[in-house]
């Protein structure tokens, strides 16, 4: 008998003789917050992420440009801003090891937790979101859902192979509880609220 058959046979033989029906899971959205964006921003801050308030007038990307001004290697996956490392040229993830800033657009975000959802469609090369020193995320405020119950109804979980919630930067508190950012992944994660342009609708 294969291991598979062994295991399944034992499971069937040892099935607990009790009736345990599967419960219905509510959406827990009876009391939505007044502003999803404001709640998202608070949650993001609580997890160590940065929120780039857009300027009252002028270039909405001004703060991003300021951030990346002195960077050596910028890899942009969004049409709104240009980098100097083309993700389409990357054959091996190791080719992204020297990236200072990666700029990406989130598929959507979750107000409850301050998370942004990044998938292989957003990233092109998944590893860029972890090898870059800093991550900048463009987020359309219309793409914010209330909580994780709503999040898991989104199609990304059914039609993509790699889908990851990022909530703030890489962090650890493994040594005496001292908080470290950039434990192994990005040292900072910044979110810029910016609607999707007509040329770049939700894919």
């Amino acid at each position, binding site marked *: 008998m*294969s*291991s*598979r058959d*062994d*295991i*399944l046979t*034992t*499971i*069937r033989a*040892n*099935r*607990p003789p009790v009736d*345990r*029906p*599967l*419960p219905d*899971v509510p959406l*827990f959205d009876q009391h939505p917050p007044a502003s999803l964006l404001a709640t998202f921003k608070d949650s993001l*801050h*609580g*997890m*160590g992420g940065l929120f780039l308030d857009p300027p009252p007038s002028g270039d909405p990307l001004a703060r991003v440009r300021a951030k990346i001004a002195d960077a050596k290697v910028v890899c942009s996956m969004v049409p709104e801003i240009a980098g100097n490392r083309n993700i389409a040229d990357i054959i091996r*993830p190791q080719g992204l*090891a020297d990236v200072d800033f990666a700029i990406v657009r989130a598929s959507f975000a979750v107000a*409850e*937790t301050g998370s942004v959802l990044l998938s292989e469609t957003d990233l092109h090369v*998944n*590893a860029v*979101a*972890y*090898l870059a020193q800093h991550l900048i995320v463009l987020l359309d405020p219309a793409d914010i859902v209330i909580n*994780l*119950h709503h999040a*898991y*109804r989104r199609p990304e*979980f*059914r039609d*993509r*192979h*790699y*889908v*990851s*919630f*990022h*909530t*703030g930067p*890489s*962090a*650890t508190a*493994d*040594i*005496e*509880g*001292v*908080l470290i*950012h*950039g*434990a*192994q*992944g990005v040292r900072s994660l910044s979110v810029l609220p910016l609607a999707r342009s007509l040329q770049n609708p939700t894919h």
Partner: protein
Amino acid sequence: MSTPPTMLHPELLARHDGDAILRDGRRLDHAEAASKPLRSRPEPQPRGAKIHGNRPVDQAEAAACFIAAPEHEKMHDERLWDLRQKRDREMHGIAEWEELRSLASAIKEHTLTHLDEYLEQFEAKARANGIHVHWARDAADHNRIVHGILNDHGAKSLIKSKSMLTEECGFRAYMASVGIEVIETDLGERIQQLDNEDPSHIVVPAVHKLRTDVAAVFSKTIGTDPDNSDVHYLAEAQRETTRPLILAADAGMTGCNFAVAETGTFVVCTNEGNADLSANVPKLHIASIGIEKIVPRLEHLAVFVRLLSRSALGSPVTQYTSHFRGPREGGEMHVVLVDNGRSERLGMEEFWTSLKCIRCGACMNTCPVYRRSGGLSYGATYSGPIGLIIDPTFNARKYSNLPFASSLNGSCSNVCPVKINIHEQIYAWRRELVKQHEVPLAKKAAMKAAGELLSRPAAYRAAIATADVALAHLPRFVIYNGLNAWGRHREVPHSPNQTFHSWHKANRGEKS
């Protein structure tokens, strides 16, 4: 009421060390210790239980050694109690918290009672998405399968993220024996790997170590300054020395927090992003998945993800919650579904619900015994309350003392996000181990005598009456000597002038 003091050991509070300030000047403190870091003086690290083959692990003795290292004990106790406090804070922010726990428990119990169906569904979906699915009966089977996959790819180095299942399987030792280099990428696991010591806690593997212990380990292994125990310095050193290994690795391995039958997806939660590096940098990704990790549908993930990090660390979610449903372009993905005693445990009437465990560690954080003993005192892969109820299934003899390392206070059951009745199972294991003749004669006799006394009211009253009279009159040296365990660390109780029973009888005149 007066304002409560916030710490048991306020002398541990250190000066502010300037990290992680929020924009409004508040100090960021999620998932870390109390708002200021703890600072203690160097002290040799206690090393945990002595393992002698299959002999029963003496947890009490190892716990005594931990308590005899007061700097370690205080830091450990305060740090984990703080995680418990943070968990409570998150709980109070979620009106539906108790409903979520009930849902999580019900989803898991349903799944476990239909485990074969859901495993088959998961396998079919995963295969359809291009994932290779393997099944491993036990630890040896798991190690052999992974070795085979690595060999097929000529892989000589493997980066991995934290997985308690791989600890169960003795994976690192096996890989070392067949000449494959394994690099742990989680900071806590890496510290333990470099120190040649097991992880002590399932979520924060090096929580028992002071920064001076870590400085000593790193100076010997990755060349840091032995006199520099600044945590940022140490963490940065680990990041910089591990990064090239990640980039050069032939293969990557992760564990799994949840596996969704409906879509063939498996979910890995980390705070560092090291699982995502392990999975997305090398071409080959292998995931070890315990068969109890299955949940039926995507909608159920919301319940578990909302409970996991809040219970474990007191943050709403882990920094990275990644869902893998198939290999990336040009890559290859394998999962190994591992039994290693789980299907047997399913057949244990009193203990099968321990399979609901989502490995959050909340029970360890709240356990007053665990916090004062350190995880290494249990001498097993799983320590703390959950360890007490699953370790005897791995080795009844070796872990026969563990269910006695509990005061049965019940806090663990209350914090468990999936409502495992941990403290009741601990008590049930004591009876079970006595039945299996694994409890030493002296212990059994003492417990039997106590049980008989407590169950017969007249005998109990007579006994305490005599005891109290004896106490009032015997000289001190008779009471305080090596034979009297009670008197070793405590003053013997004063005998009251009247026991409660006699007072009640005299004053109330009712039948008591």
